């Protein structure tokens, strides 16, 4: 008696009592479906979140210099030089200075618009596309020209999409619009499209502060973000001799953090879902015990005809495993359907993980074997005479 025959026999036995087989499988179905749904929803949530971070630029390094750095300080030129010295690691650098002034458009004042002082490389770091005009250029920065590049929201809202050459006021200074950025966030208020970029060299005048404390770098190769981070950290350490005076954060680290967070979340939730798999396994064990008792006579007949202990054992273990595997398959299908349905409902794409499907299936087969073993062992140990006499 080989396993293939046991398997065919098991399928037959499932067929003969469909309702009972379904109820037996229910625990496994629910458990497997729960695991698939949770994993795919969390994976979907994660890739949504990571996608949002990546849209900010996953190849970014943010440097913050503590304003209480004491007498020692770094020049913008020093920071820019780090890029020049490490072309294999760092692509571009730009200071990012938040300007604490509101923008005025002829009559209106916008409180939602953010104004940032940047260098001519900022658009390359952030992959900003220009829809009209140009981005800030080296000469704008160098000559501290009062030019600005505006987001698509501002161009639409205040300039009727015809902003080039028009003026706006920031902190009492008149700026000329030289470029409009391509729409990034469907031109909403306070969004990425509600922004103004000006030369960072003007920030001293506007903020009344000489210090530039934050910089943005783009790295050449994401895989080497640690090296890039070290290069900048080392350069800063030489200046400050104190690692608390600055922070260097790679966007890849943020993504790693999300990975770690969602990983833990997955583990906890899947752990809870796994309890229902366990309960399902106990259900299978229960039904198999009943089935062994019911089929005592059959076992006796088989033994009298020459079935060995292993033959009987494998017959019942395979039957339990088949039941549970069928439950697993139904659970996987159910889980995928519900995940797709939920992804429509939650507004992000649920990611069906092949790994989760494979693991869920193997676990359900494993549960069948583990929980079927005890009843099967009981069947295998039956004395053929007693079993034949049983009615």
């Amino acid at each position, binding site marked *: *008696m080989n396993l293939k*025959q046991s398997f065919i026999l098991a399928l*037959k*036995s499932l067929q*003969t009592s469909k309702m009972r087989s379904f109820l037996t499988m229910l625990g496994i179905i629910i458990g497997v479906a729960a695991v698939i749904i949770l994993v795919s929803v969390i994976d979907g949530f994660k890739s949504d979140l990571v996608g949002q971070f990546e849209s900010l630029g996953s190849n970014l390094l943010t440097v913050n210099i503590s304003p209480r750095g004491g007498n020692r300080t770094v020049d913008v030129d020093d920071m820019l030089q780090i890029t020049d010295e490490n072309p294999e690691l760092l692509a571009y650098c730009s200071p990012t200075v938040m300007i604490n002034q509101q923008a005025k458009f002829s009559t209106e004042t916008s409180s939602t618009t953010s104004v940032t002082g940047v260098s001519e490389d900022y658009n390359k770091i952030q992959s900003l596309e220009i829809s009209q005009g140009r981005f800030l250029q080296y000469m704008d920065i160098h000559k501290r020209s009062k030019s600005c590049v505006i987001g698509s929201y501002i161009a639409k809202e205040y300039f009727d999409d015809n902003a080039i050459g028009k003026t706006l006021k920031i902190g009492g200074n008149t700026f000329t619009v030289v470029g409009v950025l391509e729409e990034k966030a469907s031109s909403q208020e306070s969004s990425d499209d509600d922004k103004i970029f000006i030369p960072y060299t003007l920030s001293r005048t506007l903020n009344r502060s000489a210090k530039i404390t934050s910089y943005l770098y783009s790295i050449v190769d994401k895989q080497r973000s640690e090296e890039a981070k070290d290069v900048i950290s080392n350069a800063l350490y030489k200046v400050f001799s104190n690692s608390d005076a600055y922070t260097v954060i790679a966007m890849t680290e943020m993504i790693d953090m999300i990975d770690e967070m969602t990983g833990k979340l997955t583990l906890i939730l899947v752990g809870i879902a796994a309890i229902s798999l366990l309960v399902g396994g106990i259900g299978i064990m229960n039904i198999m015990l009943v089935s062994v008792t019911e089929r005592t*006579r*059959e076992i*006796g*007949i*088989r*033994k*009298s*005809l*020459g*079935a*060995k*202990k*292993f*033959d009987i054992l494998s017959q019942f273990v395979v039957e339990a495993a088949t039941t549970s595997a069928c439950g697993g398959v139904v659970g996987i299908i159910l889980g995928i359907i519900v995940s797709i349905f939920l992804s429509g409902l939650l507004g992000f794409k649920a990611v069906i993980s092949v790994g989760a499907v494979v693991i869920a299936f193997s676990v359900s087969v494993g549960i069948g074997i583990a929980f079927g073993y005890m009843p099967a062992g009981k069947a295998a140990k039956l004395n*053929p*005479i007693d079993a*034949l006499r049983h009615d």
Partner: protein
Amino acid sequence: MIDLKDIYKIYSDGDSEIRALDGISLNIKEGEFVAIVGQSGSGKSTCMNIIGCLDVPTSGTYHLNGTDVSTMKDDELATIRNQTLGFIFQQYNLIPKLTLLENVELPLVYRGYPPQKRKELAYAALERVGLADRYKKFPSQLSGGQQQRVSIARALAGNPKVILADEPTGALDTKTGRDVLEFLKKLNADGTTVVMITHDNEIAAQAKRIVRISDGKIISDERQAQNL
């Protein structure tokens, strides 16, 4: 073929012990047709279980086809049952959810024959009992006599040396019972050793040799000249 020497089967139940078989010696040669007769509780079923390798004696030796089986383990006994013996039970003992062909195939499955060979042998065995055309039917679709013929086919399928029949006519009416008996006689005429257990003297009278058991002991052992 079957050689029992000083077989005892003793069940101890706390203080008291029950001697189901109390020193039985019996030798059955190849080609014999033996009826073991006794009232219920006489020990004839226990004797049958031991001859059928379903049970081992408490003491004594049992040689079946030259092999000492009295001290064998369960799985070894299973192999002996599978290869040397064919059982016919009073209650037919067919598996209800299997078709006739699958039922007859069972001993061959456990013998490890490939599917094609099994099916051919099982079909041939069903032909011998005249039920080949119904091989796809289930036991519940047949009459009692037909079911008993299927169980005979199952016993024959593996071409055993010995057929053990435990009250083969017990659940059948007189006429079909007689048919089954005729079939056993025919099998015996073809050379198969047949051992039949019964409490019915009329049935036993059809055998070539009658062994009577009472209280775990053989009280008579006679050959019937008219059947030889």
